């Protein structure tokens, strides 16, 4: 039963191997010329200045969490869309429709709640 997960293991090995191989190849074959520019966090763009540990508004966190929530929920819509055809063919159309309507209604309610409580306002 666990052999079904073999592709995931292979993918994992490939991903780790790819990263390691690239690191070693550039370590072995690359030339090294250290200068001030290379020690910068970014080699192009604006010059870095000040500390990176500044305090950010908690509001960014709220928006990020809300984004993740609705982002992940929308992934579930794809799963539904993929299987809706089969289920409709099997005569389950009303059930399938009702399920997705309920799902989206709950999401909509959550969005309305966030909106009403001022979670989407930038300048507070």
């Amino acid at each position, binding site marked *: 039963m666990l052999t079904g997960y073999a592709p995931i293991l292979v993918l994992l090995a490939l991903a780790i191997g790819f990263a390691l191989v690239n690191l070693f190849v550039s370590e072995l074959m690359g030339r090294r010329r250290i200068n001030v520019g290379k020690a910068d966090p970014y080699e192009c763009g604006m010059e870095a200045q000040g500390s990176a540990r500044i305090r950010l508004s908690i509001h960014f966190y709220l928006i990020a969490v809300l984004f993740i929530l609705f982002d992940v929920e929308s992934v579930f819509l794809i799963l539904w869309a993929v299987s809706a055809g089969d289920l409709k063919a*099997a005569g389950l159309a009303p059930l399938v429709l009702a399920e997705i309507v309920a799902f989206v209604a709950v999401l909509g*309610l*959550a969005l309305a*709640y966030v909106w009403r409580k001022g979670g989407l306002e930038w300048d507070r």
Partner: protein
Amino acid sequence: MNVEMMKQVLTAEALSAAAPFLALTVGILLLLVVEILPGTATLRPLVFLGTLAAAFGYAWQQANGPELRVFAETYVANSTTGWWAILFVIATLVAWLFARKFYREEARFEGEHDVLLLSAAAGMVLMAGSRDLLVFFVGLELLSVPLYTLSGFQRAKRTSIEAGLKYFVLGAFAAAMFLFGAALVYAGTGTLTLSSMDAADLSKSITIAGGALIAASLFFKISVFPFHLWVPDVYQGAPAPVTTFMATGTKAAAFAFLLPMAVLLPSDAAVLLAAIAVATMALGNLGALVQTDLKRLLAYSGISHAGTMLLAVAAQVSGGASAASVSNAILYYMAAYVFTAGGAFGLVTAMESRTGAPVTIESLKGLAQRQPLWAATFALFALSLGGIPATGGFLGKYLVFSTAVQADMIGWAIAGVLMSVVALGYYLRLIVAMYMQEPAKDATHGEGSRPWANAMAVVCAVGVLVLGVLPGWFMEHMK
């Protein structure tokens, strides 16, 4: 997509099995609607109580109905889960009623408070009915995440934030242990559903290790040694109504799943469980003896009660006591505990909310003169916690120890009974303080009238007495 499976899974039977859970979910959504629409705030208590009533009704049906195994055997509804659900509804109601008028700065978040309370209750119902490790995990998180938030609900109080953070960090650790254990069990048996584990070989060491990890994460929730360290701090720091809820509901929900998942534990583990149980009782009682803060004292007493119930689980694992008798013993013990601890923590809530200062044994002195009703009911709760006959606590203890005797664990049972005697030391101290000692000059705890608290104290006291005096009715219903 397996169409046939979908047809088998989503049946009317499945919906009726999940009805108490669904009722709570719908209630959560309705509460959010109330929050959104302007001018409907007065409807909130109505919606909350209506939701609990609906959940209670469905749970009652299950308690008296046939056994349903639904969602591909991952969820069951039978008389036991029905009674658990009824218990969760009562615990929620007690916590909610004691929370009335408790919050001041946070009063404008009362809607969120109620939503979180209902989510946790829904999580408990899901935990009790689940017979699958993943379904249980969803219930566990549905219970835990709202409780982390509720523990830190009083944002202006340092202790409350500390309680929330502590509970969150340790809770996340326990959740990770559970998942790790579930993964090992899956590796060993190839399934996560408890019913299909009966057929699998459970003697592989990887399965046993997984079962042990899962049990450990449940031990964290029911607060037994050595996973009890968070309890006194969190119970003390969290808002008192939330403590009421955690002490009663969370413990009950974790026990409700510990019993069916105990099939994963080999019978050799019984001795270990019994040793943990007695160590927990000793530690809880000795800890409680030296406490002066009432919430900490009740927290330690809760630890020792968890130890007592674990003794019954040990009896089941050893194979000496039948699963049904252990399940009934723990259900009865927990029912008595919900009323007793619910009432006791609730009265602490009522005393605390007037002044905002922590309630100590010192501030209990002379309570019999200031609030005769509170003193009388609190004395009854203390006696029931101590296991004095004619209270629900006595019968719970009797049933638990008799399962241990059935399983030939007489030595452990005697150790447990001796521990209950030690416990009387601090329970009686509370009664002495309330009735026989003069109040300090500036004693203010418990002044003024609190009609809701009075009513709830009386209801809990009646519950304790009915469970203690008329056990036959419940026994007949629980079968």
